[in-house]
C-alpha cells in the first residue's frame, strides 16, 4: 500500500501524468523505430505496400517484446520500481 496507494491527490495526478507521458514517448519511439526499419524511403506513392504493412505489424510486436526484456533487465538491477 505504502508508496503506490499514496493519499496525496496531487501526487497521484502527477503519477498518472507521468504514466501518460511515458506511454506517449513509448508510442512515438515505436513509430519512428518501425518507420526506419519498414518504410521504403523512395516515396513513389503515398500508399503502404503489402510488405510494409506486414513489416509494421511484426515490428510493433517485436518492439513491444523488447520493452519487456529491457523492463526485466532494469528491474533486476533495481533501476525501476
Amino acid at each position, binding site marked *: 500500500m505504502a508508496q503506490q496507494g499514496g493519499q496525496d491527490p496531487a501526487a497521484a495526478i502527477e503519477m498518472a501524468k507521468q504514466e501518460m507521458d511515458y506511454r506517449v514517448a513509448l*508510442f512515438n519511439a*515505436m513509430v*519512428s523505430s518501425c*518507420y526506419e526499419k519498414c*518504410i521504403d524511403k523512395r*516515396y*513513389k*506513392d503515398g500508399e503502404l505496400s503489402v510488405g510494409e504493412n506486414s513489416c509494421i505489424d511484426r515490428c*510493433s510486436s517485436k518492439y*513491444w517484446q523488447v520493452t519487456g526484456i529491457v523492463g526485466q533487465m532494469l528491474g533486476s538491477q533495481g533501476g525501476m520500481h
Partner: protein
Amino acid sequence: IEQMQVRDSLRMYNTLVERCFKDCVESFRRKDLDATEEKCVQSCCSKFMKHSARVGIRFGELSSEAETQMQQMMAGQQAGGGK
C-alpha cells in the same frame, strides 16, 4: 488533456516536416521546391500518417493484451497469497 493533444499534434507536425524534408529535398540550386520534391513530400506525409495510424492500432492491441495478462497475474498472486 486537450493541451496534450495540441502538443502531440504539433510534435507530429514537426516530426513529419523534419523527416520528409530530409528524405525528399536534396538539391539547393533553387529556392523553390520543384514538382518532384513536392510530390515526394506529399507521399512521405501520407505514408507516415498511415504508418503511424497502423502502429497506433497495434499499440492499442498490445497494451490491452498486456493489461489482461497483468490482471490475470495479479489475480493469481492474490489467490496464491491467500493459501
